[in-house]
């Protein structure tokens, strides 16, 4: 049984950025993402967890989950990064969006994630719903 609840941020009633990203991925990426999220949700202590990175500096308050995927037909790993808000008191993690990381570049950018965080926390825009596994 999951210890943490994984949720998705919906900037508007018709948009779930995490789900939109997921739906566009190959089956292999979806499978890796699913297992990564399931195991994370069943991990009690995330504070020293390899693959769970608190962002610093101007992105403080954002958290990054490392989901590296090695596809059988590609030489290099792909680096996906669900970015979100970790709320230990509520025992949940809200996925704002999922980026692909290449070197130090995030696509979409961490600024986009930050703008969603501000919209949700400060402007009360959008909504959160349970992540649909």
């Amino acid at each position, binding site marked *: 049984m999951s210890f943490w*609840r994984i949720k998705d941020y919906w900037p508007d009633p018709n948009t779930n950025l995490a789900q939109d990203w997921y739906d566009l991925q190959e089956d292999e990426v979806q499978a890796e993402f*699913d297992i*990564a999220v399931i*195991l994370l949700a069943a*991990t009690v202590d995330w504070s020293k967890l390899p*693959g769970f990175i608190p962002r610093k500096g101007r992105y403080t308050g954002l958290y990054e989950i490392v*989901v590296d995927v090695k596809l059988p037909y590609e030489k290099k790993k792909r680096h996906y990064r669900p970015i979100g808000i970790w709320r230990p008191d509520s025992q949940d993690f809200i996925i704002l969006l999922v980026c692909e990381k290449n070197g130090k570049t995030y696509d979409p950018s961490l600024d986009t994630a930050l703008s969603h965080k501000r919209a949700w926390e400060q402007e009360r825009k959008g909504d959160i719903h*349970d992540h649909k*596994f």
Partner: protein
Amino acid sequence: MTINFERIWQKLTKSKRYRAQFVSAQAKRSFPYQLRAIMKKRGMSQETLAKQADISQGVISRAANPNYGNLTINTIVKIVGGLDMAYIGLIVPFSELAKWVANLSEEGVQVSTFDEENILAPVKTRGDVPLERRPPFPHGQRGSALDAMRETIQ
């Protein structure tokens, strides 16, 4: 997020490619998950386990990282040996995998060491003839198996 057997099974029906990667990801990530859960429960540091397993702390660190993914059976067996626990790598049907994932919890992946099992599971003898020897605990059922054993001993 509701994770249950039916939902996982539904996902597995998506495609063979999905299933293959699901198996690969589970194989890669479940050992680090269980290792961290066992070490945490026992308050064991990476340094301590490294000494017990006669390998470097860096190897333990990589083994505990779910994104590493290059662990060899040799390394796994050394680490498990350091814990004085057993390891079985088996081919299983997808229903087993789905059950494992659906029931996943840190408590459920805890395992006894050999000494812990041996103390609680003595061989009853009449003279030199063993009358009863307890079977190993089913994976994830340590609590109930130990309770049953305590009752027998009393």
